C-alpha cells in the first residue's frame, strides 16, 4: 500500500522547496520547519515502504511515468524500489532530517534563509530522484539537479568571492565528468534503444569487450566527477566555503556518494570488463592515498574532513573495483553517518569560533583552536566517537566496514591496491586524531594568535552549542555505535540482501559479500596472508593514533622540526600545494579554456559565421535588384500597354454613343432588319446558328 506512494518520497521535498521559496519569509524559522517536515516526511514514508517491501518481498517494484509520447517511442521517468534504493532512501532522508534540525541552530540569523531551506529541500528531492531512478534519463535528471543544488548551496554566501568561485569550480568540474557519462549513456541508448538501467544491465555485457571497457570507464568518469576522485577532486575542498550543514549533507554523506551509487547500480556493466574494474580500483585506491596525505598538513578543520571524504570514497571505489560489492556499500553506509557526525561537530566548533574570531577563514583554522574539551563536552565526545569510527577502531562501525574493504582487496590479490589501502588506514587515523587533538586538547590558542597577528581583540566567550545542534550530534554518534554492534551480526544477511539485486544479472556474492567477477590484479604477490585482516588494520590505525597523540597532545614528537628542513620540508611543501592540482586546474581553465578556446571561437564566429551572414545578405540584395528590374520593366510595361490600347479603343467606340434615344431605337431596328435579311438571303449559313439559338432558348 505504501509503496504506491513511492513517488511522494521525492516529490514532497521538491514541492515544499518551491513552497518555501515563495512563502518562506513569512513562516517561523523562515522556512526551517518546511525543511524538517519535508525531510521527515520522506523519512517516514521511506521507512514504511521499506518495511512493506521487506515483509512482502516487493523488491523490484517499478513505477513508470510516461511524460512524452511520439508515435511508438516515449520518454519516461521510472523509479524502482529495491535493495539498493531502499538503503539510500533511508540514509538520505534520515541524515537530511537531522541536518535540517541542526540548521535551526547553525544558520540562525543568517540572511536569505528561505533560499537556504528551499535549496536544501530541492537537494533532498533531487538526491532521492537519483537513488530511486530506474532509467538513466531520470538518474541523469537527478544527477544534474544535485549538481545544481551543490552549486547553489556552496555559493549560498554568494557575496563572498571565494564562495562564488568555489561553487563555479564545483559545477564545472563535475560537468567535465558528466560529459563522459553522458557519452556512455548515449552510446548505450544508441546501441540498445532503451535507457532502462535494469534492461541495460542485462544487455550491455553482450557488447564487444573493448567498447564495454570504454563504456564502463566513461560511466565511471562521471562517477569520478561527482564523487571527487582523482583528478576531478579539487572542487571538494573548495566546496567547504559553503555552510557546514551543506558540507555535512552534500559533501560527506549523500551527494558525493552518488558516484559510488552509480557504480553499484550499473555494476553488471562495469564489472563485465576486467580493465574497467582495474581502472576503478586503481583510481579509488590511489585517490584514497593521496587525499589522506594532503590531509596531513591542512590546518582548516573542514578541509581536513573534505580530504577525508575523498579518501574514504576512494576506499569504496577500490572495494567495488576489486569486487567487494557488499563491503563497498557497507562502507558507504557507515561513512555516511560518521562523516556527517564529524562535519556537524566541526560546524559546532566553527559556529562558536566565528563568534570569537569573526573571520570566516580564521574561524575554521585549527591553529586558533585548542582546549575546547571542557566547554564543549558534548561536541568533543561525539567528535571523538566519530574520529574513532573513521579511524576504524573496534567496535565502531568504521572498523567493520573498512575491514571488509581491506579483506576484499586481500581476496582480489592486487598488491598495489592492498598496500595503498592499508597505509591509508594509518594516515587516516593520524590526521583525524591530529584534528581532534588540535581542536580539543591543550590550551585555547586563539587569544594569543590574534594578538600575534594583530587582529581584533577577543572576547573569551566559549560555550557549547544549543541543543538543536547537539542533539543531532548525539543521535549520529549513537547510530555509529549502534551500527558498530549491528554490523558484524548482520554482515552475512546484508550480503545476501544485496545479492538479491545482482542475482538477476548472474553475479553471485560470495561469503564476504565479494562478487564473483573476473578481477585480474595488476600487481600480485607481496601480500602477507599471515595476519587476519582486523589485525592489520588495527595495528596501522593504532599506530596512527599513537603518533598523533605524541605529536599533538603531548608534544613529545616535534613535528614542527621535522617539516622545517630537509626532506620533511620538501614533502610538506608538496602536500601543502596539494600536488599542484589547484595550479593545474587554474592553468587549464584560464590559459587553455579561456584564452585558446575563446580566441578560436571568436575567430570562427567573426570569419565564418559572419561571412556566411554577410554573404546571404549580399545575395539577397542582388536578387532584390533583379526582381525590381523585372517588375518595373516587364510588368509595368504590360500594364501600361494595356491601358493605353484600351484608351484608344474607347475613344474610337465613343463615337457610337450619341445620347439620343431614338437613334438607339433606330439602330436596334436596323440591326434586326439586317439579321432578317441575312436569314432570308443566306439561310444555309445562318439557319444552323438560328436553330442553335432557338434550341438554347
Amino acid at each position, binding site marked *: 500500500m505504501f509503496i504506491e506512494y513511492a513517488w511522494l518520497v521525492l516529490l514532497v521535498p521538491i514541492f515544499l522547496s518551491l513552497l518555501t521559496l515563495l512563502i518562506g519569509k513569512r513562516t517561523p524559522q523562515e522556512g526551517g520547519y518546511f525543511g524538517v517536515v519535508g525531510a521527515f516526511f520522506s523519512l517516514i514514508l521511506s521507512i514504511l515502504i521499506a518495511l512493506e517491501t521487506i515483509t512482502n518481498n516487493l523488491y523490484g517494484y517499478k513505477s513508470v511515468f510516461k511524460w512524452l509520447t511520439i508515435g511508438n517511442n516515449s520518454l519516461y521517468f521510472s523509479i524502482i524500489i529495491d535493495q539498493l534504493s531502499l538503503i539510500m532512501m533511508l540514509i538520505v532522508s534520515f541524515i537530511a532530517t537531522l541536518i535540517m534540525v541542526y540548521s535551526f541552530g547553525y544558520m540562525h540569523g543568517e540572511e536569505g534563509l528561505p533560499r537556504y531551506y528551499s535549496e536544501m529541500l530541492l537537494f533532498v528531492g533531487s538526491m532521492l530522484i537519483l537513488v530511486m531512478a530506474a532509467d538513466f534519463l531520470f538518474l541523469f535528471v537527478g544527477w544534474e539537479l544535485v549538481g545544481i543544488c551543490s552549486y547553489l548551496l556552496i555559493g549560498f554566501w554568494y557575496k563572498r568571492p571565494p564562495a562564488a568561485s568555489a561553487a563555479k569550480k564545483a559545477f564545472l568540474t563535475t560537468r567535465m565528468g558528466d560529459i563522459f557519462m553522458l557519452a556512455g549513456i548515449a552510446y548505450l541508448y544508441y546501441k540498445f534503444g532503451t535507457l532502462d538501467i535494469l534492461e541495460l544491465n542485462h544487455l550491455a555485457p553482450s557488447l564487444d569487450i573493448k567498447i564495454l571497457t570504454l563504456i564502463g570507464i566513461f560511466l565511471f568518469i562521471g562517477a569520478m566527477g561527482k564523487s571527487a576522485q582523482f583528478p576531478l577532486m579539487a572542487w571538494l575542498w573548495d566546496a567547504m566555503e559553503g555552510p557546514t550543514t551543506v558540507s555535512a549533507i552534500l559533501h560527506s554523506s549523500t551527494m558525493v556518494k552518488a558516484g559510488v551509487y552509480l557504480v553499484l547500480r550499473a555494476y553488471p556493466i562495469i564489472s563485465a570488463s576486467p580493465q574497467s574494474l582495474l581502472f576503478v580500483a586503481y583510481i579509488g585506491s590511489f585517490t584514497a592515498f593521496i587525499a589522506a596525505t594532503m590531509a596531513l598538513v591542512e590546518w582548516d578543520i573542514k578541509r581536513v574532513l573534505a580530504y577525508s571524504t575523498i579518501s574514504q570514497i576512494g576506499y569504496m571505489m577500490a572495494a567495488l573495483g576489486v569486487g567487494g560489492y557488499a563491503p563497498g556499500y557497507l562502507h558507504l553506509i557507515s561513512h555516511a553517518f560518521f562523516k556527517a557526525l564529524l562535519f556537524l561537530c566541526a560546524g559546532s566548533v566553527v559556529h562558536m569560533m566565528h563568534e570569537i574570531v569573526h573571520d570566516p577563514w580564521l574561524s575554521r583554522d585549527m591553529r586558533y583552536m585548542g582546549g575546547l574539551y571542557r566547554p564543549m563536552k558534548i561536541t568533543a565526545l561525539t567528535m571523538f566517537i566519530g574520529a574513532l569510527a573513521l579511524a576504524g577502531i573496534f567496535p565502531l562501525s568504521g572498523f567493520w566496514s573498512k575491514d571488509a574493504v581491506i579483506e576484499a582487496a586481500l581476496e582480489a590479490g592486487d598488491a598495489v591496491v592492498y598496500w595503498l589501502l592499508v597505509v591509508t588506514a594509518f594516515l587516516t587515523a593520524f590526521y583525524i586524531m591530529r584534528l581532534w587533538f588540535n581542536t580539543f586538547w591543550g590550551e585555547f590558542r586563539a587569544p594569543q594568535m590574534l594578538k600575534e597577528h594583530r587582529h581584533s581583540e577577543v572576547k573569551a566567550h566559549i560555550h557549547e552549542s544549543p541543543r538543536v545542534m547537539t542533539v543531532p550530534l548525539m543521535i549520529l554518534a549513537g547510530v555509529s555505535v549502534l551500527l558498530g554492534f549491528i554490523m558484524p551480526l548482520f554482515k552475512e544477511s546484508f550480503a545476501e540482501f544485496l545479492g538479491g539485486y545482482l542475482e538477476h544479472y548472474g553475479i553471485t556474492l560470495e561469503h564476504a559479500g565479494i562478487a564473483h567477477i573476473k578481477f585480474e590484479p595488476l600487481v600480485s604477490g607481496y601480500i602477507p596472508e599471515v595476519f587476519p585482516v582486523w589485525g592489520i588494520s588495527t595495528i596501522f590505525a593504532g599506530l596512527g593514533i599513537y603518533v598523533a597523540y605524541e605529536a599533538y597532545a603531548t608534544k613529545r614528537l616535534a613535528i614542527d622540526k621535522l617539516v622545517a628542513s630537509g626532506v620533511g620540508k620538501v614533502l610538506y611543501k608538496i602536500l601543502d600545494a596539494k600536488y599542484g592540482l589547484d595550479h593545474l586546474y587554474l592553468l587549464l581553465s584560464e590559459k587553455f579554456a579561456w584564452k585558446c578556446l575563446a580566441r578560436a571561437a571568436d575567430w570562427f564566429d567573426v570569419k565564418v559565421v559572419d561571412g556566411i551572414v554577410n554573404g546571404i545578405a549580399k545575395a539577397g540584395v542582388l536578387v532584390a535588384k533583379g526582381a525590381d528590374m523585372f517588375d518595373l520593366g516587364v510588368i509595368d510595361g504590360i500594364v501600361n500597354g494595356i491601358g493605353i490600347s484600351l484608351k484608344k479603343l474607347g475613344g474610337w467606340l465613343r463615337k457610337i454613343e450619341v445620347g439620343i434615344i*431614338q437613334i438607339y431605337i*433606330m439602330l436596334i*431596328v*436596323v440591326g434586326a*432588319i439586317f439579321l*432578317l*435579311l441575312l436569314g*432570308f438571303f443566306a439561310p444555309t449559313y445562318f439557319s444552323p446558328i438560328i436553330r442553335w439559338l432557338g434550341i438554347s432558348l
Partner: protein
Amino acid sequence: MDLYLVSLLTILAIAAISAFLAVESRELMHGVFFLGVFLVTMGAIYFLLGAEFIGVVQILLYAGGVVVLLIFALMLLPRRGEREVIYRGPGTGIVMIFLVLFFLMLGKSSPPSGAVRVPTSLLAETVLSQYLLLILLLSLLIIVILVAASYLVGGER
C-alpha cells in the same frame, strides 16, 4: 366562313385598331386606355389558341398591372400636351421596310397544321419541375426590381 373565323377576325380587328389608336391618340390618357383594350383583346385571343393560363396571366398582369402602373405614372407626370412629333419620317420608313420584308419572307414558307391545347396542369407541372430555377430567378429579379424602382422614385430612406 364559320363563326370561329368571324369572331377571330373581329377580335383581331379590334386589337389592331386599338393598338393604332393607343399610339396615335392625342391625349396620353386615351392612349393608355386603348392599350388596356388591346391587352384584353390579346388575352381573348390566347384563350382561343388553347393557352388558357397564359391568357389569364396576360389579363392579370398586363391589363391589371401594367395599365394601372401607367395610369399612376401619368398622374405623376405633367400633362402639358405633347409637342409636335418630329420624327415621323424615319419611323414610317423603317416600319414600311419591315413590313415589306416580312411579307416577302412569309410567301416562302407555309404555316403548320394541327391544333393543340395545353392543359394548365401540365403546364404547371412543367414549369415547376423543369423551369423551377428560372421561376425562382425571375422572382428574385422581381424583388430586385421592386427595390430598384422604389429607390429610383426617390426612396432613399
